[in-house]
């Protein structure tokens, strides 16, 4: 009989490279913490946020059940340590909160292949083949080993998994565990997600006029796009249709009315990008 599976989202990191609290960074309008909790909650019996003592009153973290670090400045091992001690009979699915591309299928893959008789079950990094410690399941039996590891002044959870008795899996979705540590990486991830991970593609009709009609080689087209607004849509079309005008030269019209670049698009919208006019 395997131990009940609890979930833990780690938010106690110092975010030294990002220089911003990673838990509250948003993708497509939702914080990383909220995204991680939303993914994890349906898959585990109970779900907690791991925080440092000085973060426990933070509004985002306070919205969830918390487990507070007992040890300082030992990195992510502190969260795992506190969880294993607070509920010693539970196994823990531990997640870093900075995995914007993580999907439910990857967590389900991990859970389905969990080996409760070993100390942990983990996914292999698609970058270096080593175990990923911050999207992994730790069994109750790992507690003593981890305590000893910390007592021996070891900190690195990757090294811990590399030498422990661990079930290792190959990721089905190779990019699911790409993480985001710097402002640049966040920018790139934001663009990649751009609201898109959560948005299904929707049908939009694009109308082209004058010089843009000639550049696009058509006066209208209907397509599927995940673009949340006209700005993102124009960037998409600029590449797709080799449009030469910059957005600051254009105005937007949505459904035959002047619109706004950031106005959210909905299925069935007709969008036009208007080149500089020359009536009269």
């Amino acid at each position, binding site marked *: 009989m395997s131990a009940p599976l609890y979930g833990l989202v780690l938010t106690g990191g110092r975010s030294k490279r990002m220089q911003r609290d990673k838990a509250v960074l948003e993708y497509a309008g939702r914080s990383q913490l909220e995204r991680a909790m939303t993914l994890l909650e349906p898959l585990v019996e109970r779900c907690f946020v791991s925080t440092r003592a000085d973060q426990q009153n933070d509004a985002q973290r306070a919205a969830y059940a918390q487990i507070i670090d007992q040890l300082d400045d030992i990195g992510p091992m502190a969260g795992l340590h506190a969880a294993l001690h607070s509920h010693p009979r539970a196994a823990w699915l531990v997640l870093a909160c900075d995995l914007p591309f993580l999907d439910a299928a990857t967590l389900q893959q991990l859970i389905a292949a969990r080996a409760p008789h070993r100390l942990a079950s983990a996914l292999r990094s698609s970058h270096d083949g080593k175990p990923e410690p911050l999207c992994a399941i730790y069994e109750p039996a790992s507690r003593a080993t981890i305590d000893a590891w910390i007592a021996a002044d070891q900190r690195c959870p990757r090294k811990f998994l590399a030498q422990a008795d661990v079930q290792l899996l190959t990721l089905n979705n190779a990019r699911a565990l790409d993480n985001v540590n710097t402002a640049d990486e966040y920018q790139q991830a934001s663009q990649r997600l751009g609201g898109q991970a959560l948005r299904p593609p929707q049908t939009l009709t694009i109308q082209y*006029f004058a010089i843009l009609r000639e550049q696009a080689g058509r006066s209208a087209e209907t397509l599927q796009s995940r673009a949340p607004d006209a700005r993102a849509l124009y960037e998409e079309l600029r590449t797709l249709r080799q449009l030469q005008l910059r957005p600051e*030269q254009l105005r937007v*019209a949505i459904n035959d009315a*002047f619109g706004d670049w950031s106005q959210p698009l909905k299925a069935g919208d007709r969008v036009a990008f*208007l*080149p*500089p006019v020359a009536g009269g």
Partner: protein
Amino acid sequence: MSGFSLSASAIDERALRGELFDPACGGYVCFEGWVRNHNEGQQVTRLEYEAYEPLALSEGARIIAEARQRFGVQQLRCVHRTGALALGEIAVWVGVAAAHRDEAFRACRYLIDEIKHRLPIWKKEHYLSGDSGWVNCERCAAAASDPHDHGAAHAHGAAPELRRAAPGDRHS
């Protein structure tokens, strides 16, 4: 009747003038924009106008309503051409009739200025050289400022004047 329309065929200015007749009006001002044979040093042979019709109609109606309210004039009418135009053809026609000449002049000027800068209508010039170009579009790739802004459009020299007839040349 919004007072604004688009026309794919030649504008009948006599019929439009007739529409504006109102016994309460003592002044009539008309502006006609004609297709000119030159622009920015190039010899122009013909023009094409393309409109985003539903939006041009709603924005045109809005401009007419603004002028009616702002200047208190009785009769306003504007027609803009679409399609291919030859030299000398009327590209845009604006007519205003009012009790007195001052508000008729001012309303007419307001209408043509707003129409030129706000309506989603584009003009392609064909030149004697065989080249062609979309006015305000071809040369403003380097312009950083908002090309829809009136001042900016003039700043990079791409807002040609079609006006030849002085406003009011037919007022009574």
